[in-house]
């Protein structure tokens, strides 16, 4: 069907001419308006942020990113990695980890841990960011506040090695009975329930940071909610916090070791989880560091970027539900599931990031043993990829359960990209090798934890990041009393070994216990290891001294420094 054609040709021609002139004019006007708007935006906009590059040599500051807005900067309550990273820059406790991941003096200039008594002597020049002295009382206040049942801190358990702490936290004893006392302004004495070998490492954890009681009360319950409602004991202080948008750290002039802090400011200019956005920001030199996903590696090599990697310390695994009535309580089924998968394939072929390692044990490779790394001294039992064996175990499981066909098995997983890809990978592997139907239940992180706690799963893709540098942070994961043992695994022998590791002062005895725990976890197939997480990242070549590590601040810029372009290698 043809469109009706105008009868007057001449009119049409002039109309076309008019239209052409008009459209050219319209385009010109639009372009002019856009330039004008851009100019106006330039006049009014705060270009302090948009114009600042990744490295500002003149002002001696760098720009970086955070994945999320820190949910909680009150050290008594914070539980997550992002808050940990921010707190690691602006706060310091009695002890801290140095560049080589060893415990070193923080606000305490020296310390002594003997038997059940630990004493810390604070530095004379330990000061808050308002210039007031940090005293032993500030620690007593912070620790008691965390243990206060009214506060309900999730991390209160980390104080339990201290005398009466557990009883005080449950409300059975007054807070004053907790074994921590300020002998004077600069001496802090801690009484422990029993001698423990890793107390110095615990003290470096963020929950052990001090809080000034006077300041805490003056915030009227909003401690840590804004940049102004925190007092800082660390190398930097937060000068601005625009929630969800940006954070700015400036050097804390009252920090005792300020001479060794080289940057004047750290600008967290972007808060986003979108990896592609971050990559573009890095390409445009807006941020000094970026984490790369597997898809970005080829591009990064083309750009000739200098790449680094580190292990962020976490271990990821499939955990089982051991509640009565669940299929996953059957040992032979669990064995079948383990032998039917090849742990290397997931890491090497599916995730394919060089930082990742197959998780052969719940204890990651970087943990220290007695002399060497723990995994060198106590090698993890080797599993194998053996489909025939797996099918045998599956048949046994069917007989024991008295069923001929397995109903669908629920695999609970996060919605993160790696969790999504891993869950779909396992779904297909178990379908192909064992003929099992796996249904994936994707949930956001919090919801996954809630569902794990209520026992609403058969298998779950789970993970654990270390709280302190000792194998115990992983070893007690499956102890029957641990709240994080959400699958309710209960094994008396394992519990006994965890108790040994907690209570012994002899490193050899403790490591033996961890070795036995490792064997029990393998024999009972308490988990199927997926991977130890790593990260590949690119850094601006002008910034040196950035530390990335498993414990404390994941990315630590406190001792970073800028090298001018000419001398950069």
């Amino acid at each position, binding site marked *: *069907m043809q469109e*009706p054609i105008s009868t007057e040709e001449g009119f049409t021609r002039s109309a076309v001419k008019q239209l052409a002139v008009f459209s050219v004019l319209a385009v010109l006007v639009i372009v002019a308006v856009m330039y004008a708007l851009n100019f106006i935006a330039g006049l009014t906009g705060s270009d302090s942020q948009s114009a600042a590059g990744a490295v500002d040599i003149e002002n001696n500051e760098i720009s970086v990113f955070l994945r999320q807005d820190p949910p909680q900067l009150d050290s008594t309550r914070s539980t997550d990695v992002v808050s940990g990273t921010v707190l690691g820059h602006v706060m310091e406790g009695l002890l801290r980890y140095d560049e080589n991941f060893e415990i070193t003096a923080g606000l305490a200039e020296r310390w002594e841990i003997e038997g059940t008594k630990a004493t810390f002597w604070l530095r004379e020049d330990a000061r808050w960011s308002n210039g007031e002295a940090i005293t032993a009382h500030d620690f007593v206040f912070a620790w008691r506040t965390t243990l206060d049942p009214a506060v309900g801190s999730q991390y209160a358990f980390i104080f339990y090695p201290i005398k009466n702490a557990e009883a005080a936290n449950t409300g059975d004893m007054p807070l004053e009975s907790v074994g921590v006392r300020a002998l004077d302004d600069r001496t802090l004495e801690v009484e422990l329930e029993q001698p423990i070998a890793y107390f110095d490492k615990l003290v470096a954890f963020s929950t052990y940071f001090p809080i000034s009681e006077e300041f805490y009360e003056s915030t009227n319950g909003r401690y840590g909610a804004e940049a102004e409602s925190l007092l800082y004991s660390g190398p930097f202080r937060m000068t601005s916090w625009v929630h969800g948008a940006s954070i700015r750290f400036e050097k804390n002039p009252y920090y005792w070791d300020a001479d060794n802090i080289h940057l004047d400011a750290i600008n967290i200019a972007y808060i986003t989880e979108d990896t*592609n956005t971050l990559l573009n920001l890095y390409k445009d030199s807006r941020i000094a560091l970026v984490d790369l*996903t*597997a*898809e*970005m*590696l*080829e*591009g990064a*090599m*083309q750009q*000739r*970027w*200098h*790449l*680094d*990697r580190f292990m962020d310390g976490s271990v990821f695994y499939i955990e089982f539900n051991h509640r009565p009535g669940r299929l996953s309580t059957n040992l032979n089924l669990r064995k079948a599931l383990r032998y039917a998968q090849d742990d*290397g*394939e997931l*890491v*090497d*072929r*599916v995730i*394919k990031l*060089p930082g990742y390692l197959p998780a052969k044990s719940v204890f990651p490779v970087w943990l220290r043993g007695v002399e060497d790394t723990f995994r060198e001294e106590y090698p993890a039992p080797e599993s194998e990829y053996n489909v025939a064996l797996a099918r045998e175990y599956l048949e046994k499981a069917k007989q024991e359960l008295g069923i001929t066909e397995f109903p*669908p098995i*629920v*695999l*609970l997983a996060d*919605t993160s*990209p790696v969790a*999504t*890809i891993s*869950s*779909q*990978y396992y*779904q*297909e*592997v178990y*379908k*192909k090798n064992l003929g099992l139907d*796996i*249904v*994936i*239940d*994707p949930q956001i992180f919090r919801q996954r934890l809630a569902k794990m706690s209520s026992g609403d799963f058969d298998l779950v893709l789970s993970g654990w990041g270390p709280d302190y540098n000792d194998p115990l942070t992983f070893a007690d994961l499956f102890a029957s009393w641990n709240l994080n043992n959400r699958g309710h695994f209960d094994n008396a022998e394992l519990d006994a070994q965890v108790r040994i590791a907690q209570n012994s002062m002899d490193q050899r005895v403790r490591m033996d216990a961890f070795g036995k725990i490792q064997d029990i976890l393998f024999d009972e197939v308490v988990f199927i290891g997926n991977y130890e997480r790593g990260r*590949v990242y690119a850094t601006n070549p002008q910034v040196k001294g950035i530390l990335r590590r498993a414990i404390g601040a994941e990315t630590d810029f406190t001792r970073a420094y800028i090298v001018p372009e000419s001398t950069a*290698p």
Partner: protein
Amino acid sequence: MSDLSSSSSVTLSADDFAPLPHRDDIHGINRPSRSYWQDAWRRLKSNRRALFSLWLIIGLLAFALIGPFLWQVDPSRQDIDQISQAPGADRSAEIVPEYTAWDGSVQPGFESDATGLRIGADANSQSVRLIWDAVPGANALRLYRNIFPIDGELAFGLPIAEFTSVEAGFYEDRLDLRPDTYYYTLVSLDQDMNLSAQYQELAVDVRRVITLDEVRERELVAPDVELALGDEVKLSFHPFGTDYLGRDILARLMSGARVSLFIGIVAPFLFVLLGVAYGSTAGFIGGKVDQVMMRIADFVVALPFLLFMILFQVVFGIGPGESGILPMLVALILLSWPATARLVRGQILQIRQEAYVSASRLLGAKNYYLVLRHMIPNTLGVILVTLTFAVPSAIFTEAFLSFIGMGVAPPTASWGSMSNEGLATMLTHPHELIFPAIFISLTVLAFNLLGDGLRDALDSRMRSLE
């Protein structure tokens, strides 16, 4: 006289009064008489765009319904050897023995007098085995892998491994090896663990390999074909490439088309039906009832779709791994009918006043007869156009909801979820996004153009313009 009289007189017989035989051609009407639908079909046929769209839609239906019988590949099967493979990539592989762990010893045939970084065994996509001699003067060593030769900028590529010992060592690389040339570098680190300019470089050509068991398991060759080590086989053919888990994109597009077209056709059909029933009732009864019914329709228009989607998922108790297609269908039907209802009501109100309706009523026609025989057929054109325009919007809604993860459950594919998955690899493997995106766009465009053509063909007022 008699002559004249005889010649001028006409003798009439009885035959002359017989009726003439019936003749059809007498008025010379050459145009065949056509019904409304024949006429509409003729107009549609003359509209090239609409006709092309119609064929496209028929093709898509065939793709979804017949395709899976012709291309019998499991859409959820993962081909780990061919992850994110672009269409038309080389897929030959050589048969090698089963992988066994390596203890660092040099494989026979690879002994050499060379020093420095070198390979200790055949390099293939199973593993690249590297050995090196002691590096004096270094504090530690770091092994890098690159896909470009190392140039002056000292960008070594991917850090693969780090070694605290600077003695002679070995390393087996198994990370995502593809048939390509890799440039390995072993770089010395100084006391502060910083990179020094001292490094050894090695270029390694990697061939793609496969084991005999894998060939048999995946049935890459006929079972009666004898195979020996070193033979070359072709890996499974993926005409549209594979996705991030090595799944065949063509097969996923076909199974995804079923989901998309199911929602796209069933949902509009049902909600248009509901809308027609509701709208014609309101329009026919009129008065207060019409007022109340149309206010209810206004209320439904105001309900937010996405919120209701989520509520329906909760109400339906969609458990893990269950598809969200049913709640999506219900939500679409319950929330999309008012547009059709309004349109039909308007038409019915108009037709109610027509003379032929009054005539029919005078002749004793019942209400249901009036509605079904006179009113709805006269609004059918409008209804059909609404239907064709509702299809693309439903397909788009499905794609959008699957894209944000509220649609199908993995491993079921839908075009929307495939686009979502392809988005992550957009920069490196664009085919994973482009194919589902093309299919969504084509389908939506085809239904829109067809709807456009139908409107032109069915609108009776357009006829006078011809």
